[in-house]
């Protein structure tokens, strides 16, 4: 499977220079350098460049490599409209150009034109606005995960590939295109103003005449070492073969978090009456890595499930239920169902505490943040419902849900037409076996989310509907129910701080850790266990057996009269298992059945602006981006400039 394109969020900062900031702000002469060059860290670079502060890491899938380790240089051009592209692609005199655009111009048609003219394009920088575009924006596909779900030529062929309904009509597929130049995102702040000012001062044609050298230029570094596709890249990893193993790309992965409502009885594997799995997804993404707010696509569902788990805690402890509830949070569902495919695989191979035989039914909570007119939709799979027993179970599920919703101001309906399941983890379970399952969503035929898997899927997109003219305090009081308050606060916490992108396996994403501990706290109970025992996962010193409970130590809050925190141990049934695609276990990197997404290793990600003299004076290659996919992974290349970080 091919790599796809992820880009970088970059912050430009102006680096001031102490020694050079003389009263008249002039550069120091060379003679002065005799005396102070060795004494201070500031140097000539600061006269030359406006550099950026340390940036956040980048991850990429596609070969958006810069041509070389020394970055791509291009003359700045502020794109004013789509017609203005002509200057960049044809008429401009100083290619290659580094195109700066507002996010309104970040559309498929503009980017495709730039892609086709990429010999004249050194890179693109997109200025991210503070407000979401009202017309919506989704760089994902129109039919997400269409090849990794359950629908195919052999299973519901008329329903496959979004033939009946297009789930993500606003999708422009940009995230899955290959670009030969780096694409960075810029926050709309003072530094971006600096860049625009530099363009206006030096690069803008005045009265129809062409701008003359020296021109303002930008250099972007985002060298990615991966190549072509996963199979080639994994083959070239040298792990285990050399003294200093270097990996050029790593598989995407993280952990699935799951918790049965009651601890499992390990001796009775395989013959229990059945678990009802309730699942939600942990991850999201955007076009730019490191921005993955995922408010509606991930946070809404998982918060709902957390709240439900908490609400049901007491009920499930006390009541004698014939079936237990199995709360599950899958990671990596955005990338062809990494988490759910792995769990199904483990179940099939008997490497999971429960088998597929134990699963009685499945309920999934999808995107539920935007339900309009208080309607919530229940999606089911029509193909599996052709089976009589499955149909019966599904009908029971649906009627149970409708009964439960009667007391609330929410109406629960099924879409009246025969249509496939939306992209959901349930599809992977259906690939194994026809389970009765229902997916709860806030839409019936296409996403209500106008910013699906984009950087705009944030708190604003959730449109928390308050009556207007409320101050923030009043808004908080508006939500009266304590359960709702708790859910609301969890939502704000997640949406404002967490990046839902899954990243590589050795990096655990923040939502995973948060959900694991939140779930433990909300479904578990305080245990009288010392800190040491707690951290060693045992009840006390004599406890040697491995049980299906887990212990986590909570730091706790400081009581009112002291500053020392009072910690305690929480005993719960929460576990995490690896969410790595089975393709990497089987080493089948061309697998059609499982996700094969990997992330490239990368060198430093940074950028800077400066003036350039004529290109004729450059001896190295003019900034372009089609060649030298350098596979060497040396130590971080600092280049010739000492950038202050």
């Amino acid at each position, binding site marked *: 499977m091919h790599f796809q394109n992820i880009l970088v969020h970059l912050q430009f900062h102006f680096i001031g220079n102490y020694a050079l900031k*003389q009263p008249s702000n*002039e550069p120091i002469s060379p003679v002065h*350098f005799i005396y102070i060059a060795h004494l201070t860290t500031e140097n000539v670079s600061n006269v030359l460049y406006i550099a950026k502060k340390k940036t956040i890491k980048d991850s990429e899938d596609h070969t958006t490599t810069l041509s070389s380790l020394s970055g791509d240089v291009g003359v700045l051009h502020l794109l004013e409209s789509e017609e203005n592209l002509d200057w960049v692609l044809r008429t401009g005199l100083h290619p290659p150009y580094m195109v700066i655009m507002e996010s309104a111009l970040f559309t498929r048609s503009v980017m495709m034109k730039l892609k086709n003219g990429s010999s004249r394009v050194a890179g693109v920088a997109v200025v991210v606005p503070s407000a979401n575009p009202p017309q919506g924006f989704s760089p994902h596909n129109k039919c997400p995960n269409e090849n990794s779900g359950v629908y195919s030529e052999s299973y519901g062929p008329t329903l496959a590939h979004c033939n009946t309904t297009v789930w993500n009509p606003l999708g422009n597929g940009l995230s899955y295109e290959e670009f030969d130049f780096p694409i960075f995102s810029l926050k709309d702040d003072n530094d971006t103003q600096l860049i625009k000012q530099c363009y206006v001062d030096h690069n803008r044609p005045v009265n129809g005449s062409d701008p003359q050298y020296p021109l303002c230029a930008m250099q972007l570094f985002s060298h990615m070492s991966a190549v072509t596709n996963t199979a080639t890249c994994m083959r070239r990893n040298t792990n285990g073969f050399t003294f200093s193993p270097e990996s050029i790309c790593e598989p995407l992965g993280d952990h699935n978090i799951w918790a049965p409502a009651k601890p499992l009885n390990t001796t009775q594997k395989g013959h229990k009456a059945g678990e009802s799995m309730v699942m939600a997804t942990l991850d999201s993404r955007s076009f730019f890595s490191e921005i993955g707010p995922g408010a509606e696509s991930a946070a809404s569902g998982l918060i709902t499930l957390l709240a439900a788990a908490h609400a049901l805690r007491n009920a499930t402890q006390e009541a004698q239920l014939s079936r237990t509830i199995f709360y599950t949070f899958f990671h990596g569902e955005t990338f062809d169902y990494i988490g759910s495919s792995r769990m199904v695989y483990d179940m099939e191979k008997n490497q999971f505490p429960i088998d597929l035989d134990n699963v009685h039914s499945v309920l999934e909570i999808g995107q539920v943040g935007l339900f309009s007119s208080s309607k919530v939709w229940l999606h089911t799979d029509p193909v599996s419902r052709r089976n009589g027993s499955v149909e019966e179970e599904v009908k029971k599920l649906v009627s149970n849900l409708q009964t439960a919703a009667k007391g609330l101001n929410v109406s629960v309906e099924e879409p009246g037409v025969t249509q496939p399941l939306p992209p959901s983890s349930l599809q992977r379970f259906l690939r194994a076996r026809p389970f009765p399952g229902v997916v709860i969503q806030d839409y019936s035929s296409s996403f209500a989310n106008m910013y699906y898997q984009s950087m705009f899927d944030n708190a604003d997109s959730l449109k928390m509907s308050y009556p207007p003219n409320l101050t923030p305090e009043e808004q908080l009081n508006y939500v009266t129910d304590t359960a709702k308050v708790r859910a609301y606060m969890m939502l704000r916490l997640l949406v404002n701080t967490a990046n839902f992108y899954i990243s590589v396996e050795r990096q655990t994403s923040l939502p995973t850790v948060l959900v694991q501990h939140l779930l433990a706290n909300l479904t578990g109970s305080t245990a009288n266990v010392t800190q040491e025992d707690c951290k060693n996962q045992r009840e006390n010193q004599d406890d040697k057996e491995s049980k299906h409970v887990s212990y986590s130590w909570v730091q706790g809050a400081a009581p009112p009269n002291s500053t020392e925190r009072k910690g305690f141990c929480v005993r719960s049934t929460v576990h995490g298992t690896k969410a790595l695609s089975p393709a990497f276990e089987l080493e089948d990197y061309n697998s059609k059945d499982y996700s094969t997404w990997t992330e490239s290793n990368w060198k430093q990600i940074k950028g800077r602006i400066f003036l350039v003299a004529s290109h004729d004076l450059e001896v190295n290659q003019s900034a372009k981006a089609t060649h030298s996919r350098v596979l060497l992974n040396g130590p971080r290349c600092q280049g010739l400039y000492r950038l202050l970080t």
Partner: protein
Amino acid sequence: MTAAVFFGCTFIAFGPAISLFLFTIAREPLRVIFLIAGAFFWLVSLLLASLVWFISVQISNKESASQQKGLLIFGVVLSVLLQETFPAFHEVFKCFFCFFVLVSGLGFGFMSGAFSVVNILADSVGPGTVGIHGDSQHYFLSSAFMTMAIILLHMFWGVIFFDGCEKRRWFVVAAVVVSHLVVSCLTFQNPQYVSSLVPTYIIMLSMGIWAFYTAGGSLRNLKLCLTCKDKDFLLANHRPR
């Protein structure tokens, strides 16, 4: 700013000095040793000057820009004075003929030129050029020219200073020190490069002529040399004192 600028500035700055080295010094190992010794003594003087400057900066008020500028001037002056004390070590080598003074002066010049221009050259290889903060475009070029002037000046000063010390003509020594100070302080005129470069070159030419006559040269020798009748005119014109 690109490789072209890098090579251009390098050759401007070090060209005359390297050609002098190649034609007159490289053949004789003893001269090379004196060259290195001269460079070393310059480094020592730099070390002392920088120690003083470093300490004074640490104890000064870092916020006050005028104080820092004053410290800079003080550092420049002190360094010049320290540099001028080191040729006194040449007294040790008095027994050798005075050509070595030229050589060690050139060593002085090489090292000082290196320190003044190498980091500028290093940055000139990259894609950027000076100007984004509004500074003049001619930064690299004028730095290179200034460096060339200073390297040659060190050489001339060496000859004149030694001669002055030998003949106990203290006004000559004072003139050397004063002209060194003047040249260093002229750099404070940057970025008005014309007002710093032109006087420096005038001083260099006059020092050059003075050193030429001090070393025993004359118009007649010059004519002979140019018509290739006297091969190594500098050596040949040494007169024992």
